């Protein structure tokens, strides 16, 4: 019995890391940066707005990791999707741009997925290669130029707009997390994702179509990256090949800190949201502290290291 309780405590501890970490860092900045305006509504809203694309990417990554796969290419997918959408919006109405942006994301995800699920190549290597491949395509498709997005409806819906005075990026975050959580926790597909990552052989002999699950999680990951690309393009009113480039580490860290296992079978969409907000808060706080960019990187790296170490503690039990 004591064994069971201590393991339950261990589980609680892992899941609690993100909540405590979130609270601790929030309180720390709230006190130390009070005079710099950390606690103002404007600054806090800003954190949520800035993390919206990363949160959406994180939701997708929860699915890939839970199924025992990884996606390193989502940053490149963000850029290609945003650029495709921006190019289309120059000549065609909004629905075409959105459809192409999301379609490109899911299409690249499907490309990754087919290689992983049916040619049985390891996802780490496949997406390492496609990360480079699509980063190159993003650069060549517009010759490194950035493409402005003039469509006001688009920048409203995916960027600076508001609905009942709630910023649209907040709405996208809520929708993305809610839908992701619902699918992950409350559908057969979500259960099959977890079973596939946990024990692929057991999943397969139980009649779960394991290759199909692997294909779908990569498509979800690509689709989420595509949506993140639209959100970037909407907020910045332009698309450039650099979009999403620097999000790889932040998003992976957010997902892991949020309680998703790197080797599959366990995860949390809500945790990924908190992890993503935590990363955003960290960025924001370190900037308000007037740290040099190099120092920000060092501190951020160290804090991520501690957070990941804490959230992975005891997980190989």
């Amino acid at each position, binding site marked *: 019995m004591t064994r*069971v309780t201590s*393991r339950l405590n261990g*589980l609680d501890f892992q899941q609690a890391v993100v909540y405590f970490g979130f609270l601790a860092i929030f309180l720390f900045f709230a006190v130390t940066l009070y005079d710099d305006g950390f606690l103002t509504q404007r600054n806090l809203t800003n954190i949520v707005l800035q993390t919206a694309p990363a949160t959406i990417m994180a939701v997708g990554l929860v699915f890939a990791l839970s199924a025992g796969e990884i996606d390193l290419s989502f940053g490149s997918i963000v850029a290609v999707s945003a650029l495709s959408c921006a190019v289309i919006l120059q000549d065609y109405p909004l629905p075409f741009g959105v459809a192409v942006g999301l379609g490109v994301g899911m299409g690249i995800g499907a490309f990754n997925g087919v290689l992983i699920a049916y040619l049985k190549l390891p996802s780490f290597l496949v997406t390492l290669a496609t990360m480079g491949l699509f980063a190159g395509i993003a650069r060549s498709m517009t010759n490194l130029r950035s493409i402005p997005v003039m469509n006001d409806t688009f920048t409203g819906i995916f960027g600076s707009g508001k609905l009942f005075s709630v910023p649209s990026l907040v709405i996208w975050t809520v929708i993305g997390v809610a839908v992701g959580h*619902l699918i992950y*926790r*409350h*559908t*057969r597909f*979500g*259960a*099959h994702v*977890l*079973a596939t990552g*946990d*024990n692929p*052989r*057991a*999943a397969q*002999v*139980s*009649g*779960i179509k394991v290759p199909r699950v692997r294909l779908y999680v990569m498509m979800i990951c690509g689709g989420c990256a595509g949506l993140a690309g639209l959100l970037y393009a909407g907020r910045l009113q332009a698309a450039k090949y650099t979009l999403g480039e620097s999000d790889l580490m932040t998003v992976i860290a957010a997902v892991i800190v949020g309680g998703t*296992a790197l080797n599959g*079978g*366990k995860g949390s969409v809500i945790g990924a949201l908190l992890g993503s907000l935590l990363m955003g808060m960290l960025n924001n706080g370190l900037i308000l502290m007037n740290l040099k960019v190099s120092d920000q990187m060092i501190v951020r790296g160290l804090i991520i290291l501690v957070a990941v170490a804490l959230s992975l503690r005891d997980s190989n*039990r």
Partner: protein
Amino acid sequence: MTAEQNVLSLTNIHKAFGGVVAIQDFSLNLKAGEVVALVGDNGAGKSTLIKIVSGVYTPTSGSIELDGEETSFSDASSARSKGIEVVYQDLALADQQPVFMNMFLGRELTKPPFGLLDKDRMRRESQELVDELDVRIPSASSTISQLSGGQRQGIAIARATHWASKLILLDEPTAALGVAETARVEGLIENLKKKNLAILIISHSLDQVFRLSDRICVLRRGQQIGIRETAKTDKNEIVSMITGVA
């Protein structure tokens, strides 16, 4: 269906991989409520036979009848849909998921109107099942990794019982267990007999085979050496059948 009708009839089953003969002319009938043990040395063809009955392999020739009707399985799912369940040696459990999700793995229950998972019902039915079979676990919500080897085996067997309507195949059900846990799992298998399922069990432990089975079927190098009624044979005879040394 009369009690005397065979649940499973294998007739002249032959399986070759390329030129290598794995199973030669194997015939066996299994009745409801009967436990037949399949024994033989490593490489005798026991696993091949289990895979044929569970639909993983298709026999090269010979016939499989279920309840007197000739059938063939295109894959493992089609055998499962006809009421045949396998308890694999490695148990095929997803360790980080709760007991009730494992019990319904691949066959999760949903509820209208949106087709979302009906976790309450799966939890409740799993609890009823483990209670009925007397598998003692903390609760149906426990994670598999929190359970002991015997408890896990119990879950795997309970799952097979829940879904099998005709036949359960058990592959080395107690190979990894201690003495007390083995006794509990054997008790569980005896309970299954009462549920009128046919049971085919592979085991390396002759003591266990003699405790559990009604009949013993011996294989050696793909050949069926013979079938004996457990009550009318002894270990010496079975050992000499297995080894081929009189």
